[in-house]
């Protein structure tokens, strides 16, 4: 597929529709999404923020082992899932629980990984969502392969593959983009450039003018978009998804955003960034921006807001309920699904563990009987 350079290079400035006060800017590169979609996006944003807050609280209460929050990046999470059709697929990272839920995965199932109950709590085939990937950029190749399969099968399935700015330095990132471009695959690579890979700033990941500039090297278009402007993200993602579906090949979308929380609860971000910088980005909150615009357009009534808040609260309550119960996974799960059929070796090891557990239970029982006996004396 030959392209003119000018078609592949990102614009001078990121695509942006809205300023922070909700005023529409003079953006002519893409059409503004319809109000009805922006209303749906706002609803999703509010739910997303509530999920992030709830999960961070659940970490503090010891109910979740870890939570890499997408607080501040919710517009990207929402725009990754909303433009997809049911038959499409999403290939997310550890930070993208909100996008996973946006595809229809029940929140409680999306948290199974971070709860330490199982490595993935949902059936990827049911929702068109690959397991959340932790080894960086590995999922991008799976996304390309999946899109290759769709192409070979004559389907018009589109795949959105997500990663962070840091992950763009991994070899797998380059291989995935190259393969997708060479085969003309229906993949939209969505890079959330939140400025940091844990403590390491973007300047350590690339010397290019932007991450979107990498696209031209593979022969695909690169687009820069304001990652805190849900309207701009939706416009860009829709265009890229439509293009992919029509057989136009992959697109690299770089969304400029910011991680408001530390990398995870285990990280201390005061070691590597200024509070003032964080505050600047708090002021660019994606929720406030879209809300202001909808209010200016008279497209968000007080009643609608109440309803959205109630919906978000319901999702938070669902999460709390699901994670309140101290669920103990079945030890036999250790040996299930290692292979299609359990090997004799694994049967033997399960028998050994079952024996250990039985003896533990016996000695616990004996101890408690002993304690009761002591008490009775």
């Amino acid at each position, binding site marked *: 597929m030959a392209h003119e350079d000018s078609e592949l290079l990102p614009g001078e400035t990121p695509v942006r529709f809205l300023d922070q006060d909700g005023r529409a800017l003079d953006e002519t590169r893409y059409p503004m999404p319809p109000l009805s979609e922006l209303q749906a996006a706002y609803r999703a944003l509010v739910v997303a923020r509530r999920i992030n807050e709830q999960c961070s609280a659940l970490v503090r209460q010891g109910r979740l082992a870890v939570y890499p929050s997408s607080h501040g990046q919710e517009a990207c999470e929402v725009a990754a899932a909303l433009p997809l059709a049911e038959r499409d697929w999403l290939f997310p990272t550890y930070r993208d629980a909100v996008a996973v839920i946006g595809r229809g995965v029940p929140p409680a199932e999306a948290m199974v*990984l971070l709860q330490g109950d199982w490595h993935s709590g949902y059936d990827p085939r049911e929702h068109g969502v690959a397991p959340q990937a932790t080894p960086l950029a590995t999922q991008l190749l799976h996304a390309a392969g999946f899109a290759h399969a769709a192409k070979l099968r004559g389907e018009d399935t589109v795949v959105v593959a997500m990663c962070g700015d840091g992950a763009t330095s991994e070899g797998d990132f380059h291989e995935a983009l190259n393969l997708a471009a060479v085969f003309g695959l229906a993949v939209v690579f969505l890079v959330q450039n939140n400025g940091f890979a844990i403590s390491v700033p973007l300047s350590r990941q690339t010397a290019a003018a932007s991450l979107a500039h990498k696209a031209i090297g593979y022969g695909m278009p690169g687009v820069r978009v304001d990652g805190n402007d849900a309207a701009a993200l939706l416009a860009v993602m829709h265009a890229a998804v439509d293009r992919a579906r029509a057989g136009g090949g992959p697109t690299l979308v770089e969304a400029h955003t910011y991680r408001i929380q530390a990398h995870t609860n285990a990280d201390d971000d005061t070691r590597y960034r200024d509070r003032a910088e964080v505050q600047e980005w708090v002021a660019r909150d994606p929720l406030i921006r879209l809300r202001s615009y909808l209010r200016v357009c008279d497209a968000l009534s007080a009643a609608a807001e109440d309803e959205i808040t109630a919906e978000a609260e319901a999702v938070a309550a669902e999460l709390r309920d699901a994670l309140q119960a101290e669920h103990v996974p079945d030890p036999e799960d250790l040996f299930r699904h290692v292979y299609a059929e359990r090997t004799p070796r694994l049967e033997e*090891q399960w028998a050994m563990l079952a024996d250990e557990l039985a003896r533990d239970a016996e000695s616990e029982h004996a101890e408690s009987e002993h304690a009761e006996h002591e008490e009775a004396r």
Partner: protein
Amino acid sequence: MTRLTFGGALRSALHRALAEDDRVVLLGEDIGVNGGVFRVTDGLQAEFGPRRVIDTPLAEAGILGTAVGLAMHGFRPVVEIQFDGFVYPAFDQIVSQLAKMHYRTGGAVTLPITMRIPVGGGIGAAEHHSESPEAYFAHTAGIRTVVASTPQDGAVMLRQAIACDDPVVFFEPKRRYHVKAEVDERVDLRTALPLDRARVVAEGTDVTVVTYGAMTGVCLDAAAAAGDEGVSIEVIDLRSLSPVDWESVEASVRRTGRLVVVHEAARHGGFGAEIAATLTERCFPFLEAAPVRVTGHDIPYPVAKLEKHHLPDLDRVLDGVDRVLGRVAASPVSAEPAPATESLAVRTPEPVR
């Protein structure tokens, strides 16, 4: 002597290496201002500058591959891999390049690269953060593979690894990072126990338990518990998995006649197989019983809530000791036929939680 954690002792070794040798440079992810996710490089960039303590782009193959180039041009790179599960992108560079360069060039090129890798489980982490990949590396000729398990060994072995002209994979058991002890930071490397020597950490006469890394602590507890019941266990912290100090281990096994090998990693093709096989070859006439392996199961590393059922603990080690002493059947299932294997294809899949 200074009271240091295992992590603090490693930091002390890095500090010393940077101060003593201009050719030493540190490379890794988040090792600069952040001081590494386990804080082993805390403050080193502030002291030695960003030209010596280098935050790299996020690319493990890139880090290892460029370390090869740096070493070819006179540096002694010390690489930090953030977690065991993230060394795999660098595996090609390690196995195909790093391990073979000296050999390929007829000894003309030496690659004095130290690869620090946090290793093992038991910390309640999510997937890919608790791997035990030591057998892959120990299997690869041309690189040395060592595991330190105490603050004192951390302080000395890391300096020895950096001073060594061979590439060294240096495993740091995560569960030990916060273990504290008195450490002599000024040990003279010329008189210290050499890097490739094992250490007898508890003396005993009935059973030899060979282990390394975080399992050393578990085995010492087991030795104490067994001692209370009149069984005398010798615990050997192997320290170096490649090469192995066969002489020390063999001497012990010849005395006790009984061998138990303990590691967290899966059993199949695990490092315990090498220990058991070699000692069987070398000490067969002295063995009173077949060697016993006490290991993790042959499964991908499990989720946090189940890891306690995967990792060998005190009881599992004592079971192994009982078995080698002939006190129980060799395996709990050997008495009865193994249950029939079930086909998952004909079963409705159970929910995964």
